[in-house]
């Protein structure tokens, strides 16, 4: 009996030791990380260092933000909280004052957003392009073309599986604009509106061996994992400009407008523009985003 009790005690001790060591390791890592941060922290910390950046999933999923945001934080002392959603949701967040600055790609909606007084200081930042990808078997017979409207018409006519973001994002709006240009109302069993982010939609399209519209950055960042191929690219309709907008502090006094301004000045600066142009070159042999701030 006593032996058993010892046994029990021992296992409780063991579990406690494990828990403590986990915390200890976590603690150590934090300690190691902190001095590093301080070393780069030569700029004074701003009054309100938390900056909420609402952006599209494509800037996050491609890895661009992970690459360049540390430079912003080191140079300005701000701490950027990145909220990656669709362009539509990002602008909704701006409208409700839940974000300080937006990095989005939906030109028409951006202009409306500014015109309605929700945003100020809009600047072009960069652009990338969309492409239509699909299975190598190419059931719609559109591979190698550069006419997006003709391609979607073919997909619809042949009722080939197509996946739509269906989430009101910039990519979704771009897709809808091409359907509109083709004068087609896409419905039917072949048209799958999935309501998910770009990386998820890409994965689903690969599983279902369907066509989808995708931004080049997300495509290049993930294409080794999947079998889908580039089918149509190079159409001017597939052009995809990104803009940065500060949320209007007159609408919401709590907005971190100073932080937003610092972010905008930083992202349109020559140095950051060069960083953006460099991003992806070493890995994919081409820039994922072409800077075009004026």
């Amino acid at each position, binding site marked *: 009996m006593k032996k058993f009790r010892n046994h029990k005690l021992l296992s409780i001790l063991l579990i406690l030791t494990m828990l403590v060591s986990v915390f200890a390791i976590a603690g150590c890592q934090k300690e190691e990380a902190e001095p590093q941060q301080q070393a780069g922290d030569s700029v004074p910390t701003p009054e309100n260092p938390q900056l909420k950046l609402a952006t599209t999933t494509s800037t996050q999923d491609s890895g661009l933000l992970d690459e360049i945001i540390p430079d912003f934080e080191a140079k300005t002392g701000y701490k950027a909280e990145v909220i990656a959603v669709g362009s539509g949701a990002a602008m*909704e967040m701006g409208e409700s004052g839940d974000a300080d600055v937006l990095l989005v790609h939906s030109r028409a909606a951006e202009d409306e957003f500014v015109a309605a007084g929700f945003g100020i200081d809009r600047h072009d930042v960069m652009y990338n392009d969309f492409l239509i990808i699909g299975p190598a078997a190419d059931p719609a017979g559109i591979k190698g073309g550069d006419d997006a409207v003709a391609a979607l018409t073919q997909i619809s006519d042949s009722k080939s599986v197509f996946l739509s973001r269906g989430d009101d994002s910039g990519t979704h709006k771009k897709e809808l604009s091409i359907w509109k240009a083709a004068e087609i109302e896409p419905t039917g069993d072949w048209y799958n509106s999935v*309501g998910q982010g770009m990386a998820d939609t890409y994965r689903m399209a690969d*599983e279902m*061996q369907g066509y989808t519209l995708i931004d080049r950055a997300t495509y290049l960042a993930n294409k080794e994992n999947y079998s889908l191929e580039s089918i149509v690219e190079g159409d001017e309709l597939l052009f995809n400009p990104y803009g940065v907008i500060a949320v209007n502090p007159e609408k919401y006094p709590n907005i971190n407008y100073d932080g937003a301004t610092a972010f905008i000045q930083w992202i349109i600066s020559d140095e950051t523009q060069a960083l953006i142009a460099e991003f992806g070159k070493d890995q994919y042999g081409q820039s994922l985003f072409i800077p075009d701030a004026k």
Partner: protein
Amino acid sequence: MDVIGQGVKEGILLILSLDPELIQVTLLSLQVSLTALVAAGLLGIPAGTFLALKNFTGRKLILNIIYTLMGLPPVLAGLIVFLVLSNRGPLGEWQLLFTPSAMIIAQVLLGFPLVAGLSARAVMSQRQEVYDTAVMLGATRTQAVLSIIRESRMGIIAALTTAMGRLIAEVGAVMMVGGNIQGKTRVLTTSIVLETRMGHDSRALGIGIILLILAFMIMLLILKLEKRSFKDDSTIQIV
């Protein structure tokens, strides 16, 4: 505050509008979660009872694994089912990914440990007397075991209601293996995620209200069944 009020209003309007798409989404939610619940119950109750009553080597280990899996994160369950059903997975040729069947499989994976673990607990809490009395009254072994299950029904029903709550409210697994395809695999919870992502907060809240009403009605039904089965028994009362 404005958004919440608007959400409640929109929820009521949504229900009244009888939007065919929303009805389809609601019915699919019910179909997926109820099928998964029935399957989890049919597998979990016998498994739990067996583990509670039968002594064999490894029983403790299996019980501990089941208790651990009661906390299985839905996304993880989804990922496992996704990898198994993927074109590159072992069951890829079944072509089940992004269908309601895949969603049911993932939810059974989530519901089974809950039902089995809690049923085992309920049966274990019964006393030897129940079995002995049954045998003394001339019951066979099977009948005696059945009477133990009958005596444990309060706990087993609690297991089923807990599982029901988990499954109907679950989003991670059904999102991953169902794909949230409009008209095919979109359910209430994935609709809420989508509407929130699109910034339609009040519509998302409205769908949430429908989900809550649904859960409430199912619980009511289960509790009603429970009450009926306890009609003759007196409940504990403090005098």
